[in-house]
């Protein structure tokens, strides 16, 4: 719990340094910084997981488990 509080304080301090703005996003625009490099790859990953783990899905991704779709 202590760690959690410390972590939260650190996070808040980090975040309050000011806005970034669109003109300073050279690094963020790199494809390496996209959470999903392309949506077809996201689909293939979700497909692998959602048909093999009952706990997949539920967060906007395809829901898995209890269905034999491969």
């Amino acid at each position, binding site marked *: 719990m202590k760690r959690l509080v410390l972590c939260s304080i650190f996070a808040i301090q980090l975040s309050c340094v000011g806005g*970034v703005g669109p003109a300073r996003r050279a690094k963020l625009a790199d494809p*390496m910084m996209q*959470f999903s490099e*392309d*949506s077809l790859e996201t689909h293939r990953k979700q497909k692998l997981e959602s048909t*093999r783990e*009952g*706990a997949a899905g539920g967060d906007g991704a395809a829901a898995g488990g*209890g269905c034999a779709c491969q």
Partner: protein
Amino acid sequence: MPSVKRSLVLFVLVFVTTTLLVLTGSAVVRAEMAPISDEAILGRREPIVLESLLARYTYFAQDGSGYQSKAGPPGGPGSEWLHVHEPQVEVVFRQGDRIRHRLWLPIDIVTAASPVTKPDAVSAASRYNQAVALDWTTSYRATRAVTLSLREGVHVERMFRSYVLGLSASFASENEDRTFTVGVSQTNDWFDVYDVTGRRHGHANRSTSGVSFALSQVLSPTTIGELNYGLTVQAGELGNTWGGVPTNTGDRDSESYPGRRLRHALVGRLAQFLPWNGAARVFGRFYDDTYGIVAFTMELELLQRLSRAIYVRASYRAHVQSGATFYTTRTTPGTSPATADSDLQELGARTLGAKIAFDIPTGNTFLGARTTHLDVAYERYFRTNDLHVDVISCAVGFRF
């Protein structure tokens, strides 16, 4: 007099020459004066402009065993051997300044061990199963800050139809550092009902309704984070209907599921650019549902740019989940709900992967594309309850 005549001739010559020079000169000036009209500068306003085209092929090779499979002795686990070929194509195009469309067409060709065995409940004629889907998302940028999206999709298999409709709205902060997205979706499945002996019993329906909230935040010029919460309610026939459960009498009974399932998923993502031209991405997910499954997933990806056009990625994912309360490999005949689906068992899973990607600037010289993308990836997925999958994927794409 002759001098007057000569002067006149000279005057005419000078006049004609000057006029010609002026005319030619102005023509030259006019030629240099490139037009400055909207069309001359901005180009002809095309109603549809192609933005990107991407094709991906993925091959999944699965092996292992599970109690749901009928490709094995009654009471024991059967083979879950399975191969899938999956080509996908995605086209993104703009319609005017505000509307963007994404068309996505995945095709699945599945070869599985379970349907080959008798009774062949899934595939009456063939051990192969093909599925095709078409998904169309239209985004409308209402203002600089607000984007609305509509998604429609249809999925067709030999004995299965699925329709999805989704709506979402994104709101960006004034400096575009923060985006909040809320989305709702409704999926309706309609499929044939086969029991464990392969007998057909008409059709069944399944409804999946979801709502999700996502908040993404640029934290620094090199850091971005995202939080996502999703709630899903499923109702109707939630099983595949033909799956088997070994019974304590040494036989095999049909699986049965609760008529309703509520799922919560909370996801956090963080991406950090690293000083040596690399990046680290972290993904954490907590999941809970009314089947009694609680799960936790963690993923770490490390990326390294080797040159302006090439980067590599290494990834590791770990997943642990508790089992559904009604998971069993020895049921009493007639017990409901009961499942032997190994996906719903208590399990752990690991994925190791690697990828190399090329984004080659082609400066409109190759098919008019500014950038050509190529990538190749390999992943190995292994589950603690006897299942592993090898995945090979490659893609080629063009950004215009």
